[in-house]
Structures are given as structure tokens and as C-alpha cells.
């Protein structure tokens, strides 16, 4: 039973894969980040087609929005320019990518093999909306939320400390 949702899934998935591939292979950091945004956006679409609208939203807002902006900010701060592009080309040339590619391909093959052979019958069915998620989140997973807060606290403290410039004597 094919439907628009299904088509959307596959299209978005394809876009996600391609853009991700491009993202990790760009020589200029900004380009990579831009592709990554595309990837994230398409993953958001995938989420939506899988019945997870809340997550789809957050994917856009936090991943594509917050996290990647952070990356961009750093790129700008470090002022990575063409010199880096040449360097990247040099780093990326030759067989540097061959081994990792093979490794990843094997892993992928394994994962696909197991998922396919697993004959996982269940479909991606019901939409689990924000409400249910929220209920679960602040019900059984409440402690998790608290922990996440500690996680962020740690991150904040750590990042602050690490990035603070010391007045050099």
C-alpha cells in the first residue's frame, strides 16, 4: 500500500543519504555544514513520515538550528579559509579514504543484512504525537530529564571553563 507518506519517506531518505555523503566529503567546512543542514532537514521529513512529528520539529530546531550554528560559529571564529581547503584536498587524496570506506561498507552490509534477514515485520505505523511523548517524558522518564539537565550543566560548566581565555602573564 503505497501512499504519499511512503513516497515522502523514500525521497527524504534518499536526499538525506546523498546530502550526508556530500557533507562528509566536502573540502570546505562550511560547505559540509550546509550539506549537513540539508541532511538534517530531510531526516526531519523522514521522522515526520514515521509518525514522529515532535522529533521532526526538534531535529530542525536543535540539530539544524542550534548545533550546526555552533559549528558554523566555530568555523568563522577559526577563520578556516582556502589554505585549509588545499590542505584538506591533500589530506583527502589518495587512498586515505579507501580503508575507512571499506570498513564502513562492511559495517553497513552487516547491519543491512541483519535488518533484512531479521524479517522485521512491523511497519512504521502509528503516529506518536507530542502529547504522548510529553506524558512519557515527564512520567516514567522524568529522572532522565533531570539527568539531561545535569548533562547540560556539565556541558555548560565544561565549555565555559575550556573556552575561557586566561590573561597571560
Amino acid at each position: 500500500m503505497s501512499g504519499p507518506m511512503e513516497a515522502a519517506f523514500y525521497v527524504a531518505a534518499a536526499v538525506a543519504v546523498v546530502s550526508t555523503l556530500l557533507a562528509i566529503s566536502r573540502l570546505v567546512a562550511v560547505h559540509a555544514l550546509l550539506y549537513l543542514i540539508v541532511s538534517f532537514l530531510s531526516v526531519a521529513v523522514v521522522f515526520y513520515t514515521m509518525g514522529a512529528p515532535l522529533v521532526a520539529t526538534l531535529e530542525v530546531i536543535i540539530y539544524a538550528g542550534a548545533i550546526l550554528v555552533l559549528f558554523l560559529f566555530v568555523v568563522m571564529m577559526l577563520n578556516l579559509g582556502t589554505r585549509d581547503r588545499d590542505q584538506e584536498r591533500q589530506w583527502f587524496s589518495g587512498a586515505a579514504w579507501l580503508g575507512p570506506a571499506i570498513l564502513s561498507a562492511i559495517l553497513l552490509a552487516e547491519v543491512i543484512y541483519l535488518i533484512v534477514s531479521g524479517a522485521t515485520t512491523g511497519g512504521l505505523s502509528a503516529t506518536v504525537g507530542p502529547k504522548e511523548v510529553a506524558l512519557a517524558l515527564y512520567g516514567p522518564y522524568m529522572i532522565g530529564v533531570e539527568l539531561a539537565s545535569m548533562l547540560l550543566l556539565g556541558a555548560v560548566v565544561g565549555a565555559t571553563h575550556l573556552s575561557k581565555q586566561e590573561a597571560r602573564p
Partner: protein
Amino acid sequence: MNAVPMSHGLILGGILFAIGLAGLLMRRNLLLILVSIEVMLNGAGVAFVAAGSRWAQPDGQIMFLFILAAAAAEVSVALALLVRYYRMRGTLDADTARGLGE
């Protein structure tokens, strides 16, 4: 009802994960390594959402939320370290980070 089998969702997650891994292993630029890790985490997230969707449970999505939080936290610290590193070494080359080892 959606006919997309869960396995396809998982496979998408797997593909993203693998691409992320490939990036992690291929790139020498630390920034792009971090990017690759984000891709891997994202792939895992996709898998979670797909799995949660299969069971019609919120747990998968909740897990995704936590991944998101963790990713954000990690990225912030990572970038802070990255900047430090760049300031010290003047490069983001992962392979020059060999003050340790050898």
C-alpha cells in the same frame, strides 16, 4: 497506516551511521570528524525513532530527545576543546595530535 517497513527506517539509520563512521575515519579535520560524529548520532536517532514507531511507543522519540541533548552538550564541549587545540597547534589536523602515544 504507513507501509514503510520498520526495517527501512532502520536501514536509513544504518546508512547514515555508516556514512558518519566513514567520515570519522576518513577526515583528518577535527571539525569534520565532529560533524561525522553528529551524523552517526543522528543515524542512531533515526533508528530509534523507527523502532519506537514500530512499537507505537514514545520511548524511541524520548531516546531521540536525550540523544539530542547529549549531542548538543558534547558539541559544545567539543568545540571548546577544538578551539583550544587550534589555538595551541594552529591546525585541526587530527593526525598531528600525537603528542601522546608513539
